[in-house]
């Protein structure tokens, strides 16, 4: 177990289980190692167990079984205030009866840090989030974005090595959220702190993280870098949860090396990459991203299978066109094309042939 103190094992969940009622497991056998300085996001729908994991790490919930290690030390029996973990809450949890400076000073006071030192650190932390001149205000006098920055500064002011963030941007509007995403990642990387970030917003997860752990049903469904997660989902849950996705049901017709031919339910054949299928006759859910579908005959690979499609709807979205097709009886098959000068707009009712590169179309578990 001593090996776990190395840089790749700064935080370790070792076979952690959690149950609230003694009947259902909210977290089932969680194994996860987070490296020092890593930005890891726990992504998943509500009730998937991601927040429970965060709360166990912070010490507000105890693991029913298993062990959580921080820098090689088991922390199951250490109370939250001794763990030295910074935390940013969903509603910021800034103390309303204290000024911003007092809020930031609080963690330093309870650590018995001298007054001058404290003021210096508070000012530095506020400057870091560009809130240097707001020390005398009360939280209620700040906007949501400003409160968010203060909450971040407060979680960082006592220089923790690990910071937990529980959907910290959930209450902000889209523009502010994107700006803060950028700032948080920058800050985390510049300070070299390890960050565990919980969100249900996949865009946030993809843009901010070094690695994303996709949670569902109390388990990690896939733990990977954002690009891998998007382009190579390992199962149908991840494929559907991350990004937009077209699905078709079918049966494996033939399988060899990296190519599986799948017979769709209406009899058409398509080329896919076998991911979770192993043998001929397996039922499979085929997944393909809308932007990877080609309909221009000149861009289709020679010899690849194509599928007939009928254009149902053309949606103009500015930078892209979104077109709804009927493919193999599925009326919700979308394709996305860039709004380029030479791009043709498909007309509803048009009959077209669509195709794709076999490795963009993943045959997953049904």
């Amino acid at each position: 177990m001593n090996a776990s103190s190395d840089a790749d094992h700064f935080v370790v969940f070792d076979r952690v289980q959690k149950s609230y009622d003694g009947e259902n497991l909210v977290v089932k056998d969680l194994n996860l190692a987070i490296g020092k300085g890593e930005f890891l996001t726990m992504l998943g729908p509500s009730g998937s167990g991601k927040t429970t994991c965060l709360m166990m790490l912070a010490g507000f919930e105890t693991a029913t079984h298993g062990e959580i290690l921080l820098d090689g030390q088991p922390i199951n029996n250490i109370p939250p205030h001794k763990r030295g973990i910074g935390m940013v809450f969903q509603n910021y949890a800034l103390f309303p009866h204290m000024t911003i400076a007092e809020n930031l000073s609080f963690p330093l006071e309870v650590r018995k840090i001298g007054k001058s030192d404290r003021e210096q650190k508070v000012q530095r932390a506020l400057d870091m989030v560009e809130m240097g001149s707001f020390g005398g205000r009360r939280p209620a006098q700040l906007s949501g974005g400003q409160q968010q920055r203060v909450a971040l500064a407060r979680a960082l002011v006592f220089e923790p090595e690990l910071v937990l963030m529980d959907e910290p941007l959930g209450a902000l509007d889209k523009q502010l959220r994107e700006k803060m995403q950028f700032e948080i990642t920058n800050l985390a990387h510049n300070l070299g702190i390890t960050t565990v970030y919980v969100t249900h917003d996949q865009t946030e997860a993809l843009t901010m993280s070094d690695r994303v752990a996709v949670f569902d049903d109390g388990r990690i469904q896939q733990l990977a870098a954002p690009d891998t997660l998007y382009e190579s989902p390992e199962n149908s849950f991840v494929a559907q949860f991350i990004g937009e996705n077209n699905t078709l049901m079918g049966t494996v017709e033939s399988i060899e090396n990296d190519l599986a031919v799948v017979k769709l339910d209406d009899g058409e054949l398509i080329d896919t990459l076998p991911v979770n299928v192993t043998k001929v006759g397996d039922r499979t859910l085929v997944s393909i991203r809308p932007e990877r579908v080609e309909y221009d005959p000149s861009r289709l690979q020679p010899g690849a299978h194509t599928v007939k499609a009928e254009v149902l709807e053309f949606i103009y979205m500015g930078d892209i066109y979104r077109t709804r097709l009927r493919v193999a009886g599925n009326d919700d098959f979308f394709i996305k094309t860039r709004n380029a000068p030479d791009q043709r707009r498909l007309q509803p009712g048009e009959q077209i042939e669509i195709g794709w590169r076999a490795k963009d179309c993943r045959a997953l578990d049904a």
Partner: protein
Amino acid sequence: MTDAAAQTEAKSGPVLAADGRPLKASLRRALRAQKMRALLLIAPLLLFIMITFILPIADMLFRSVENQIVSETLPRTVVALEDWEDHDQPPSEDVYAALYYDLFEAAEFRIHSRVGSRLNYEMTGVSSLFRQSGRGVGRFDTDIYTDQFAELDADWADPRVWATLMEDESVRAALPETASAYDGWVNVTIEANEDDPLEEDVEDYVYTALYRDLAARGYDGSSAMLSEAAEAVGAFETVSLREQFAEIDEDWLDPAVFETIWVYSPNYTAGYFLTAVDLQLTADGIEPQSEDLRVYLTLFKRTMFMSLVIMGSCVLLGYPIAFLLANLPMRISNILLILVLLPFWTSLLVRTSAWKVLLQQQGVINDILVWIGLVADNDRLALINNQTGTIIAMTHILLPFMILPLYSVMQTIPPSYVRAAKSLGATDWTAFWRVYFPQSVPGIGAGCILVFILAIGYYITPELVGGRTGTFISNRIAYHISTSLNWGLAAALGSILLILVLALYWAYDRIVGIDNVKLG
């Protein structure tokens, strides 16, 4: 361009609506219907409260300064006393004469004992003095005047002659005392005795007034009958009214009685309020109440002190419960909340009586203490009929009023604050004291105000379990309302209580800020 022009125009004058009328007027018109409907909806309650609550209370408070009874019952005496100079000596015969007329009429109307009771609040013994004298004035020896006038001229015995005489304005002006006495007698005859003043014999006191007028001023008018009488009165046999009064009771020679009447003759008096703060109004001004009568300041202090103690023990007992209620799962906290509310569904009287059973010397609590050996059997604790009893019972009764506002405020404090504090390194205690507690202060404030104001005016419980040392000012007020019938003093005590509460409320607003009080 036109839009911009219209805007500059609008800025220069009042903003106009589309039809050219001022926008403010249009808005008022549009909202008037709403306001009327709102007013109509509250009108029944407003009327009900006004008629059954606000007006009676205003009337009650008015009684704390109202004092018309003396000047209305003894109008002539009050006027005559204005000329009384040496307050160490009994007043002049004029005052006794005025008192004679006043008392005679008051006795006919049977209201002489009322003014006696009123003055008895200020000077013990006046009540019985007035009651005796009301009977006594009818038996004064003043009938000698009547007889002498009748001897002089038999017409003096004829009520019709009197009536004719008194219609003459010049006669009335020449005989002011007689006119006043005659008018009073007419009034008494009609109103109190329901007789005809033209048929009834004129009372002795009117003859007395006539004698006094003629003896003092003479008569030089046109009435022959009066001129004759004016000449004759010098030889009349006389009777001293002062001695007549002294015969009824020697106390009438005591200047203090007249001083009391004189001090309390104005229509409005601060006397009740002064009494309520252990002072008294005398001819020489405001003086401290004599020592054996000083009770009210002690009672006020005790009421305040005990209310504070009750409020404090409610905070100490209620805070943990409210905290528990706010932090338990909804299902369990609802059951606990019912337990908190249970006392509300039991009669106050029953609860207080239950405390009597528990707390008395042979009661359950003492029995248990004796049984476990904490207290010797012959040295049982006095837990009831004293301050301890009142504090225990009232803390129990008022506790829900502390728990409920605390609970509803605590419910609004998100658990994430305490979690945040802990994640920032605070121990459980620090997180509670620095983060949770300050946010629950509005609830404490609301609970304290509620409990304190309820406690300060509480009546039943201190009455039942307070004994002699554990009663409140409200018990004294109730005593004056229902037993001593000194409503003026009761009203003054009540007003002071009201002012105290308002002052405390004001102080609380200045120190803590009433915005910080939350009931939910």
